[in-house]
């Protein structure tokens, strides 16, 4: 096989792996390829409806736009780029640590620089394909209503996907060199978790501090932003101009992204092998310092202590907690500002907090209930399964209480009634999330957390609807109590349906 044939063969292998991994993600590891593809097509078709609702009014937009619209469009594109960067960092980290595969590649007589160049390109294309898939309904609607000039949007999505992947590879490789392989995994997980949300949260913080509102558009559409924005011919507006149909600029952006990716491949592909070797050579021996004495306590206490210790040492939880805390920063700031004012916007804090609690509780409940690394040990321990489950749920409640008690306590000073409603809603949202995990329990390793949302689509939706439902109920309880009753009943019905169709019930 000549080198070109060899490279194309390896590229096919990479895409096959990427496709199967994606399929496994979509089907929860079950062999349902056709159903996954049909489901995806139906989902993409249905997505045209919300896409129509969101973008149809912008179909006639043309350059030059007013400064506020231009800023909002550019910020939206930047947010998309940040989210793709986040996904790409996660993909790159996974590739670095997939040792079984890398051992095989590195022990083969293939030229590693070429092999890793293809792997980098595969990451870039995977990230871009995903983005293209999600953006297609929106671009379709714009093309249908506004003409073919909107097709340039596909080029923009591809350009930001390629540049995000190139940046992710550079960032991860830089982290490897600066902080070593054992810490890079943790830092990369945290960075990828917070990077997408960071931009929105920063906008919200500025909005809270400047305008007393949680709306992220407040700052973007403000006179201040329009005043400091550069002139219309600035490079900053290129992505917006390209997406509005400027083909020349779109081609330039695409070319720049390809050059960036090419440079990253040329610089980092030869070093990939060293990096991978350093991962393999450093199996991360983490020492816990001096051992403390064994502690007395009941069997449930032993279980709770173990769960809490594992949660404290869980990198996913660390990154998620950080993200939740970041999400809570704007409402916390708003809460702080409201002490000196009479703003009624403070009511908005409650649904944000309840939603965050529900989401975090879902993750925690999966980690404690389903993510058990030693199921045989716990199953052969001399205590009934019900007590094991109870101890695990208690841990979720304790963790949520520790995370959200300070916010509820601060709310007491602003509005005791709101604090009470928020606290009750947090408890209900947490209990609901734990219940969903119990009904859809599927034993797995904690390291499989990334796939938890694909093991059961119903559980994922039930968890999300429950969090949203209880958040809405809490907000309505503070504003329109009658409507809260309806919202609460609807949320309970959602949970009842989830229970009815869960494997526990079947």
């Amino acid at each position: 096989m000549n080198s070109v044939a060899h490279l194309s063969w390896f590229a096919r292998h990479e895409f096959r792996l990427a496709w199967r991994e994606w399929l496994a993600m979509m089907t929860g590891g079950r062999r349902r390829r056709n159903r996954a593809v049909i489901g995806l097509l139906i989902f993409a078709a249905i997505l045209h409806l919300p896409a129509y609702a969101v973008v149809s009014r912008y179909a006639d937009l043309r350059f030059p736009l007013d400064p506020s619209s231009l800023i909002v469009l550019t910020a939206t594109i930047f947010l998309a780029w940040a989210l793709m960067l986040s996904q790409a960092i996660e993909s790159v980290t996974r590739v670095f640590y997939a040792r079984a595969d890398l051992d095989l590649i590195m022990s083969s007589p293939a030229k590693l620089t070429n092999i890793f160049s293809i792997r980098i390109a595969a990451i870039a294309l995977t990230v871009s394909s995903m983005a293209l898939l999600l953006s297609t309904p929106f671009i379709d609607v714009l093309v249908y209503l506004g003409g073919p000039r909107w097709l340039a949007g596909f080029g923009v999505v591809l350009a930001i996907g390629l540049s995000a992947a190139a940046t992710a590879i550079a960032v991860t490789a830089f982290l490897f060199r600066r902080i070593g392989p054992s810490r890079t995994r943790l830092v990369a997980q945290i960075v990828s978790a917070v990077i997408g949300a960071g931009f929105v949260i920063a906008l919200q913080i500025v909005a809270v501090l400047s305008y007393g509102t949680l709306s992220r558009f407040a700052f973007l559409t403000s006179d201040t932003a329009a005043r400091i924005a550069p002139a219309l011919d600035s490079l900053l507006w290129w992505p917006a101009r390209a997406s509005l149909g400027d083909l020349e600029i779109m081609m330039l952006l695409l070319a720049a992204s390809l050059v960036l990716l090419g440079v990253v491949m040329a610089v980092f592909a030869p070093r990939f092998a060293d990096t991978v070797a350093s991962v393999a050579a450093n199996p991360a021996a983490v020492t816990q310092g001096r051992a403390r004495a064994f502690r007395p306590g009941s069997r449930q206490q032993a279980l709770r202590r173990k769960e809490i210790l594992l949660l404290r040492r869980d990198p996913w939880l660390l990154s998620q907690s950080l993200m939740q805390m970041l999400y809570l920063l704007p409402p916390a700031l708003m809460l702080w500002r409201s002490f000196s004012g009479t703003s009624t916007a403070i009511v908005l804090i409650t649904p944000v907090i309840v939603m965050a609690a529900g989401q975090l509780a879902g993750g925690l409940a999966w980690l404690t209930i389903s993510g058990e690394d030693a199921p045989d040990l716990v199953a052969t321990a001399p205590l009934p399964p019900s007590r094991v489950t109870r101890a695990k749920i208690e841990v979720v409640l304790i963790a949520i209480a520790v995370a959200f008690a300070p916010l509820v306590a601060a709310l007491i000073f602003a509005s005791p009634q709101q604090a009470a409603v928020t606290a009750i809603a947090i408890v209900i949202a947490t209990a609901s999330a734990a219940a969903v995990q119990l009904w859809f329990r599927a034993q797995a390793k904690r390291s499989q957390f990334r796939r938890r949302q694909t093991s059961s689509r119903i559980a994922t939706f039930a968890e999300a609807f429950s969090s949203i439902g209880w958040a809405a109920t809490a907000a309505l309880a503070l504003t329109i109590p009658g409507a809260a009753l309806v919202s609460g009943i609807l949320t309970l019905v959602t949970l009842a349906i989830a229970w009815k169709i869960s494997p526990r019930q079947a």
Partner: protein
Amino acid sequence: MTSQLSALAVRGLTKRFDRPAVDALDLTIRVGEFYALLGPNGAGKTTTLRMVAGLLRPDAGSVSILGIDALADPVAAKQIMAWVSDEPMIYDKLTPLEYLEFVAGLWGIDPRTSEQSARDLLVSLGLEPHLNERCEGFSKGMRQKVALAGALVHDPRLIILDEPLTGLDALSARHVKGLLQERVRTGCTVIMTTHILEVAERMADRIGVIAAGRLIAEGTLAELREQNGRNDTTLEDMFIALVDTEAAAA
């Protein structure tokens, strides 16, 4: 009264998946005995032991552990039993000492007793330099040793091991065998499955051979030789002959 004298008494134990995995199995293991359960892949060894350990509910039959009905009172049975699987299941983010503290806590052992016992066990298994390191960087052999220490820390009277020597180097395997024999000397009963027939030959008081979910031969090495009609044959030869005969009969 027989069940009270036995460490393990299994009667008519049955489990079906798509085919019978364990087929009305009767098995009696005496107190203080080192019993090796042998059989080809898919013979039903692990299924049998998982049912005994309470990890799998049998379709039919009874399991008595030192006189305790394990199906009627699983908590009492589990209190005096330990299970070690071939795939060491430990927590990556805990150190060996933390893992053993957790296991001792689950079995309700006084920490003043269990702490010293845990240290002694880990030291005897050669893990002293790693007592305070998280298990995530451990090799399979080291993980297996931590899991074994976890099984022994609550001082069980019946230890069930499914392929415990898989992944261990020669020195570690010797440590493990030494520990198990020491436990047997103090009156503990050990049931072990293994594919390493020399280990069974050298360590076991009695050997059971299982095929297609049924016990096809049982006894001491001498008794098995007698059954086989040749005094100079090895366990490996006998095992292959027994399994071949069974396969031909099926």
